[in-house]
């Protein structure tokens, strides 16, 4: 065993047959995660994958680590229990747009605000796949599905905006087709202390094919992928001819030549105030037209698990370790002879 590359991807594969539909975006994400874990100097037995219910939630069965496939929407809560009980573990949450934003929305926002040491990967395919094609909380208005035959009248969530509004200390977005960027985002989230949310645009080729076409089609992707990188001006396009400016009205896309290069916003993922990150998240209403990809926010906040351990240490320092015999006498006693 060497210090680097202790593992290969196959060390993280199980003998279980992967049962997603052929061509599903989940395969590329699974491969990216397995490959990424193999590069880390983290014992395999310290990884825990926790999922809820949905296509993506089968993920833990395919990871040769500790794992739980749980109840619809509840993965962030169950993972919170694991990460708080033992902060030495690396806990991953696998969820989807239905699991994480609909039935489990409450747990997601609270895990983020508490800054529990969790790496949350949200597979966003904008559809319910496992139940065969109903609109989800990220489906666009007007979406026609079996349960919205006249078009959905639900206004969708923007998961990045929601996470930023939930006090998340790490928020990023990537797309399943871009394996290198996916791994780069996984790495950044892994290194960040506390709760992280990585939204992955994931294609469901059966029930919602080509939902992310603007970002994946050869002819449109360059002009629609806004790469945001910490410390760099935000420009995009085949020749970086477009850029983003931020002013009192929010963030908007401009032509660099017209706006002037010095007016292009330089991204600061570590800004304590999440307002500008939020403004950037509003550049697109979904994966339509120019859409930011990358790390929106990455700030240092103490993680919940360690804060709780600190309180225990503090209590023990102040009162001494717990003694049952003392505790049951703590309300006053009397003797009967």
């Amino acid at each position, binding site marked *: 065993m060497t210090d680097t590359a202790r593992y290969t991807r196959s060390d993280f594969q199980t003998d*279980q047959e992967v049962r997603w539909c052929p061509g599903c975006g989940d395969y590329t994400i699974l491969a990216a995660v397995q490959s990424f874990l193999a590069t880390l100097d983290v014992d395999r037995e310290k990884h825990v994958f926790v999922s809820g219910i949905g296509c993506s939630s089968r993920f833990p069965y395919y990871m040769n680590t500790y794992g739980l496939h*749980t109840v619809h929407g509840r993965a962030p809560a169950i993972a919170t229990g694991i990460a708080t009980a033992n902060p030495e573990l690396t806990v991953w949450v696998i969820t989807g747009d239905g699991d994480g934003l609909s039935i489990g929305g409450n747990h997601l926002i*609270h895990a983020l605000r508490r800054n529990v040491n969790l790496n949350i990967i949200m597979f966003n395919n904008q559809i319910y796949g496992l139940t065969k094609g109903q609109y989800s909380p990220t489906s666009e208005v007007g979406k026609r599905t079996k349960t919205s035959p006249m078009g959905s009248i639900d206004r969708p969530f923007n998961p990045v905006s929601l996470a930023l509004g939930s006090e998340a200390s790490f928020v990023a977005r990537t797309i399943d087709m871009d394996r290198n960027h996916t791994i780069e985002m996984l790495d950044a989230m892994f290194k960040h202390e506390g709760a992280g949310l990585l939204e992955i645009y994931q294609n469901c080729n059966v029930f919602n094919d080509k939902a992310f076409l603007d970002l994946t089609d050869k002819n449109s992707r360059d002009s629609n992928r806004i790469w945001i990188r910490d410390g760099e001006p935000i420009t995009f396009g085949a020749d970086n001819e477009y850029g983003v400016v931020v002013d009192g009205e929010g963030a908007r896309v401009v032509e660099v030549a017209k706006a002037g290069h010095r007016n292009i916003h330089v991204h600061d993922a570590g800004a304590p105030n999440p307002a500008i990150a939020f403004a950037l998240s509003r550049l697109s209403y979904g994966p339509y037209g120019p859409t930011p990809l990358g790390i929106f926010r990455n700030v240092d906040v103490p993680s919940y698990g360690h804060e709780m351990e600190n309180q225990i240490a503090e209590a023990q320092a102040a009162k001494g370790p*717990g003694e049952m015999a003392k505790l049951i006498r703590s309300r006053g006693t*009397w*003797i009967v002879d």
Partner: protein
Amino acid sequence: MSDETLTDERPVPEQIDDVVIRFAGDSGDGMQLAGTQFTASSAMFGNDLATLPNFPAEIRAPQGTIGGVSSFQVHIADWDILTPGDSPDCLVAMNPAALKANLSDLVKGGLLIVNTDAFDERNLAKAGYDTNPLDNDALDAYQVLGAPMEMLTKEAVKDSGVKGRATLRSKNFFALGLMSWIYTRPIEPVLDWVDKKFGTDTPVGKANVMALKAGYNYGITTEAFHHTYTIQPAPLPAGEYTNVVGNTATAWGLIAGAEQAKLPLFIGSYPITPATTILEELARNKNFGVKSFQAEDEIAGIGTALGAAFAGRLAITTTSGPGLALKSETLSLAMIMELPMVVVDVQRGGPSTGLPTKVEQSDLLFAMYGRHGESPLPIISTSTPSDAFEVAFEAVRIAVTYMTPVILMTDGYIATSSEPWRLPDVSALPDISRPFASIQDGEEFLPYVRDPETLARPWAIPGQAGMEHRLGGLEKDATTGNVSYDPDNHESMLHTRARKIEALGKSLPEVEIFGEGSDLVVLGWGSTYGAIRTAVTRVQKTGRKVAHVHLRYINPLPSNLGAVLSSFDNVLVPEINLGQLSRIVRAEYLIDTHSFNRVLGQPMRAREIETKIYELLDQEVSS
């Protein structure tokens, strides 16, 4: 006047065996505190006691109304008592609403102490009195002793530094002082408490001490109060005692369980009446390594507990009826994952929000069957406040030994009432730990291969190398735990999980029969213990034969229960529900039962059960 020593120029008090006293007032009047302090003094004096707090669900219900009445009942005795008493012998009514709400419970001829200052037109109207009951013959059946407690308190505390309306806040201490005089209670424990809580130099501390002494002295100087009482210490078994509240005993039992299971305790809970104080007690004992997590909702409460169980901690979640319903789905998951956990259900009046501060035993069938799929779980119940310690410890033992969630049922009465508890020797508590899984080098870890006796599966936790495995809600292969859709495997797993509960049953103690004969047995569970035992004992004293069987284990039922019940002609089952244990017993043993159900949001009364027992015994004789 407050600083002078109390001179106890007491006429010889009448010696009585026991007394039931109820302090009643507006929920802002501090009756819970007065009752608790009166109880503490009596405990220190050596009496046996049992208490029953009763308060509205609203934090501040409209002042002066019937809905806003809060009361605290305490039964003190020179003998071993089991209930807070059916009816008070003495009622302290701090306002007309308190009188109206409680008078019908006071025994005829009982002592009625009233704060006459509160009986003005406005308060009388709020309580729905057309005329002042103190001025007519409405209270002729009682010994009424009035005192202008507000005026006297105001006057007594005028040098304390407390000003204006705030002076009236100490009137509960005036009442407490007066009651301490009438029932010959020492006031020193109260003085100590005030000192600890407020300091005797603070205005509030001073005011409370002054009011307490003023109340006591008012008894001394007012001839009307010269008939006083005393209750001798009870001959309790020798030992060291504390006065313990049920929820506190539950929390302590869980901590003791964690210590003896050698597992750090994790509690994930959401605040809900009347369970919240268990979470609070655990949160203040972090020096035991307790991790207390206040979740965003009931589902996250059990969710985090499940996660902690997977991570190898002693997982606890606490709740009451509505919360148990919300936890149901995750409880089934914990059951199929076969992870240890204790779910405490402090039952309250239902359905829905129901009577959140009152007692009921109506979650039993929900605990038994309120899960999807075939999902049997061990269910265990507490019968008194101090019993909760032992039962909570036992719940932990079962959870860890059998790798299963356990439902521990208490109720709103046990949760908030108290009794003297002879402290156990905690160093003699058994070791209930069970080692985590281990494998030899190269051996494959099989998470569902079971212990042949307990049918418990091995517990391997994240961080243990070579035993990485996945658990999920999908049906599992009987050995590997991998997802299996095999029809025979599924049916076999259903039976195996049910057999695990049966295996537990074989290890449990048989029920004991209190009493003899074959005419009638009274079968109970939970907080009806004291009332049933009192009723049965009274009937036995008349020479008639009646027996009592009280259940701690409800699922599985004790192995000899069917035979025991069948050996009696009649089985009477008193419950604070509409017959839930009755239904289980009938289904299980095909024997008939007489259900006796009172669902008033109050503890069952011994007298009612006694009447029912006579009714059945007399029927037996005449038939």
